[in-house]
């Protein structure tokens, strides 16, 4: 299992490569949520599925993808849609895109009786979308083997989620139950890139 320091070091390496102009594709970096992410992965098994957004380096590493393999994909320009079938990881660059897909996979597991679960990650703005509410409601009401992880870094690109919705407490804020795992964190990286303007 990767440690917090391992995760930070990996992301710092990606940042350095991006800032040096070596990655000719957008990257979306994690920072500040290592402990929360490690906690989440204590509940994720080898046979479980993990569905992510455009920000998924930590999930891939913690699920067991070798760091070199993750870096290869990032260097190949696929940071925002990392997919590792062997580890059952699917990531998507579309807001809310993975949510109903995750529901379908959970339904397939329920129908087949396989001993596995689905874990679906999203940011706090995505959690406010209609497709998020549909996906969570359907899953909860049909008792599907899935958990939705809401990662609240308070921003959607540069938009303050709470201000944009004019809602001081978000729909799933502070919820922890069988279906929702909410956590909040602050990041030192911007939405995309690594904080330095890069001339390609």
């Amino acid at each position, binding site marked *: 299992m990767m440690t917090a320091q391992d995760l930070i070091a990996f992301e710092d390496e990606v940042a350095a490569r991006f800032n040096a102009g070596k990655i000719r594709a957008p990257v979306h970096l994690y920072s500040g949520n290592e402990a929360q992410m490690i906690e989440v992965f204590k509940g994720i098994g080898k046979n479980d*599925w993990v569905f992510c957004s455009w920000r998924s380096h930590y999930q891939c590493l913690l699920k067991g993808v070798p760091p070199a393999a993750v870096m290869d994909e990032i260097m190949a320009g*696929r940071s925002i*849609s990392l*997919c*590792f*079938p*062997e580890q059952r990881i*699917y990531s*998507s660059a*579309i807001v809310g*895109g*993975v*949510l*109903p*897909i*995750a*529901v*379908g*996979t*959970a*339904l*397939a*597991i329920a*129908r*087949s009786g396989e001993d596995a679960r689905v874990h679906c990650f999203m940011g706090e703005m995505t959690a406010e979308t209609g*497709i998020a509410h*549909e*996906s969570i409601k*359907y899953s909860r009401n049909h008792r599907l083997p899935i958990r939705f992880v809401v990662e609240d870094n308070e921003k959607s690109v540069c938009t303050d989620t709470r201000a944009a919705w004019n809602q001081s407490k978000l729909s799933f804020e502070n919820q922890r139950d069988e279906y929702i795992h909410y956590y909040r964190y602050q990041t030192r990286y911007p939405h995309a890139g690594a904080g330095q303007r890069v001339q390609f």
Partner: protein
Amino acid sequence: MKYFDELKRSMEFLAADPRVVFMGQAVAVPGTAMSNTLKDVAPGRLIELPVAEELQMGMTTGLALAGQVPVSIFPRWNFLMCGLSQLVNHLDKLAVMSNGGYKAKAIVRTGIGSERPLHPQHQHVGDYTEALRLMCKSIEVIRLDEPEDIFPAYERALLRDDGRSTLIVEYGDYYSEK
């Protein structure tokens, strides 16, 4: 050979494969002309969904990822358009995003809204087949012009081993005209 009969025969052919599951609104209960083509399919293979097209289309991909062969039914093009992001951005791009690692075989069934004897006006009619062909890179889009086209299209969709999904378009008017 009748258009409706061939559709019904095709659904029963699909249902013989244990991987196949049918999903959508009005698949397990009456509601559309398409419902009648499923009335002899075992209830356990029919998943009646709420009206939630994006959810349905995403679930289709998720089921396919996990090895099922979902037949995802949208009664007309106008409704399927509410799920186009899932169709074009996910189901169609799955293989290339995963370097060929993921293969999702799904069958999406939709129709060109019937215009006769009642014309439902602008938002329940229209054929968007060519537009979808332009949008999709891997999904094969087939329009069923004649009764004899129907069964081969569904047979091919089910048995293909190239990792592609199939979108099959039927004419609502042909249920009573061909």
